[in-house]
């Protein structure tokens, strides 16, 4: 072969760096003398950002494929189970205004669209509650599995809440001890180009020149290789997603027995929203807001009044201020360099899209790893096309949460509803769904980041109105819909009698561990 791809160099040692290094190393683990080598260069001087504390269910497979034990992960990263999100005060802003976006698909989602049948019922309850059992499980802070359920398997679908700082260190130990990833602690000082414009090597302050065939840029917002070296422009999305600042705090539980919420709680504020994530040792709470719609003082006061009823000493709490720039690079893979994580882009944390994009990127790199340099440009162009599509779909889906609001209490909410801030693709879908119920065929790809089910949960959770149509009400459809809805009620009762509390299960896992089988 002319130029085989064997030396993979990951630059950056945050969560993105280690997840990418681990995914590639695990996928190509081999005893072959010609195997690929994965090296990760981490700066000893740059701290990691580490605020991403919510994952998607995909993280289970990502960890399992890296050969990680779920028990170790839960014990060492303060991890808990997440079964979706509860969106509070996003529609009217009044007390009691809330809806769930669970992680399970609506019952019978493969064959029957329950939306028309739910809409046709004049006595209908909440949509998510009618088509899935998970909201009831979340209401009672139950875990999605039992102590007898094997690692990574669930009775209900689940993701995690985790301590991002501990997660990076945990992944590092696993990657270096089990997957043969070489860990180099050094600062990158210069980038050496080859004749064809590829990166030939990176020069470091204490580990010399490190050569590679493929460089992965996990340098965070700095985007050292893709942004600084290759000058790939950043496309800002702040005209669509207004949030640009986060104020984050860590909050203790009242006592050791306080129940851990088994979902993310997202509560809308006057000019943003507050996340509330329960880890096993503490809660992580933060206010993300638009600085052009409110002041830092006002945002801090909203955060304090959110915490006040339950948390003592809130005035002494250490508040971290983190700037957020919503947007992404124009391309992600240039020459022999691909960016993963914040170096590729970032969107506000509303649907925890940061880590899932890292996982999807790492998987595609691992699966389509070019064997030879000659194949790399084709893989790069496919990667760029796929991920541009994915960023656009995520942006649409995040914006959806804002445009369906009925809040008019601040310019933040009314500005969000102005049509010039809504992407054309989303406007088209919203127009379609005024007449038709969201369904599989509404999207282009079979592996959509957000399937039609997610749109159903948000649209009908927020009271979107689709006109009742003459379609989808045949006798077969109706019978099948009623069977599925009845099965949801049955499943609810069964799960509530079986599933332990979230904290109860986490404590048991710490004490006894889960079995691998």
């Amino acid at each position, binding site marked *: 072969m002319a130029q085989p791809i064997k030396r993979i160099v990951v630059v950056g040692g945050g969560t993105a760096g280690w997840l990418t290094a681990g995914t590639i190393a695990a996928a190509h683990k081999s005893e072959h003398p010609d195997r690929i080598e994965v090296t990760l260069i981490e700066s000893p001087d740059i701290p990691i950002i580490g605020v991403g504390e919510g994952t998607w269910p995909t993280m289970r497979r990502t960890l399992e494929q890296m050969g990680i034990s779920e028990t170790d992960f839960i014990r060492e990263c303060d991890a808990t189970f997440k079964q979706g999100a509860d969106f509070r005060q996003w529609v009217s802003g009044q007390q009691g205004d809330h809806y769930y976006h669970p992680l399970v698909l609506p019952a019978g989602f493969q064959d029957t669209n329950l939306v028309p049948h739910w809409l046709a019922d004049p006595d209908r309850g909440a949509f998510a509650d009618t088509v899935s059992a998970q909201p009831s499980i979340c209401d009672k802070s139950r875990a999605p599995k*039992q*102590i*007898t*359920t094997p690692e990574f398997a669930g009775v209900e679908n689940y993701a995690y809440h985790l301590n991002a700082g501990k997660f990076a260190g945990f992944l590092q130990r696993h990657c270096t001890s089990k997957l043969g990833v070489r860990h180099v602690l050094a600062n990158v000082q210069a980038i050496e180009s080859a004749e064809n414009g590829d990166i030939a090597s990176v020069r470091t302050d204490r580990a010399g020149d490190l050569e590679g065939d493929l460089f992965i840029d996990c340098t965070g917002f700095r985007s050292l290789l893709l942004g600084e070296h290759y000058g790939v422009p950043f496309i800002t999305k702040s005209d669509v997603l207004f949030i640009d600042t986060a104020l984050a705090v860590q909050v203790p539980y009242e006592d050791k027995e306080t129940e851990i919420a088994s979902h993310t709680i997202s509560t809308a504020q006057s000019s943003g929203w507050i996340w509330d994530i329960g880890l096993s040792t503490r809660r992580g709470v933060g206010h993300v807001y638009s600085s052009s719609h409110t002041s830092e003082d006002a945002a801090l006061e909203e955060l304090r009044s959110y915490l006040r009823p339950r948390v003592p000493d809130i005035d002494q709490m250490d508040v971290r201020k983190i700037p957020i720039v919503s947007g992404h690079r124009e391309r992600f893979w240039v020459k022999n360099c691909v960016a993963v994580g914040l170096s590729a882009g970032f969107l506000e944390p509303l649907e925890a899209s940061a880590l899932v994009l890292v996982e999807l990127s790492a998987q595609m790199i691992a699966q389509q790893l070019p064997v030879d340099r000659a194949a790399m440009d084709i893989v790069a162009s496919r990667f760029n096309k796929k991920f541009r599509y994915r960023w656009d779909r995520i942006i649409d889906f995040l914006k959806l949460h804002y445009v369906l609001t009925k809040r008019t209490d601040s310019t933040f909410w009314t500005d969000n509803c102005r049509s010039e801030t809504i992407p054309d693709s989303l406007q088209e879908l919203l127009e379609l769904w005024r007449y038709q119920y969201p369904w599989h065929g509404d999207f282009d790809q079979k592996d959509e980041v957000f399937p039609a089910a997610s749109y159903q949960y948000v649209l009908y959770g927020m009271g979107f109105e689709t006109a009742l149509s003459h379609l989808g009400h045949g006798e077969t459809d109706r019978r099948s819909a009623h069977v599925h809805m009845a099965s949801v009620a049955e499943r609810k009762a069964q799960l509530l009698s079986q599933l332990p509390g979230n904290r109860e299960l986490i404590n*048991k896992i710490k*004490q*006894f561990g*889960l*079995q691998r*089988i």
Partner: protein
Amino acid sequence: MTNKTIEILDNLAHAHLRILPAISSRWLPTRQIEQIAPSEILEAAREYPVFLTKCSQTGQFQFSVILGLYNDENLYLDDEGVWRARYIPLNVRRNPFGLGVGASGSGDGPVITIDMASARLSSEEGAPIFLEQGGFAPSLGEMQEVLGRLVVGVDQTRALVNNLLEFDLIEPVQIELKLSNQTKLNFEALYSVNEEKLRELDDQSIGQLNRMGVLKYIHLLGASVSNIQSLIHRKNAQIEAGDK
């Protein structure tokens, strides 16, 4: 102790108590699965199918005998509810006795407890627990040995299971049965030893398992599977008796 009817055994307070000899559903909650200790596997495997199951409280593997085909069914009970078998698990025989922590805390080691609510206890029938002078009667001496074997069994189970896990030999098993009335049944949540993986182990590992005494248990588990037939026969007989 959470259960209010459980008391620490006392030769004054409990001097006149007697226990009924038969293992009977009169005092025994009927269960489909009963846990056993490794020291029981040899005898239990002759009578019952022996599998690994997970403890519902801890998720840890334990050894269990299967007594019925449905929840709360024990096919070894006769018409009077008396358990008829060549071997009955220690964890059943120990009733109504158990082990608890002494009143003065953990320093004393375990003490024998008694569940005063048990219908196995009587003041007239059965064998006395204490001798007239206050010493242990033979029935209680026997119980002491049973409880001792159960205590040792906890560590033995952990060691044995860890050996099996270390060699990655435990696998979930699916069992499908068909009864004479055409009813089909599925057993779930049972685990056994993956014989294919056992065959693939190198000689050194096999030798190691043999020296640790693990191999003989693996063979006993494998052989005990044929006892499922005996469960089916008993169930079919019950069905046919019901049809008449």
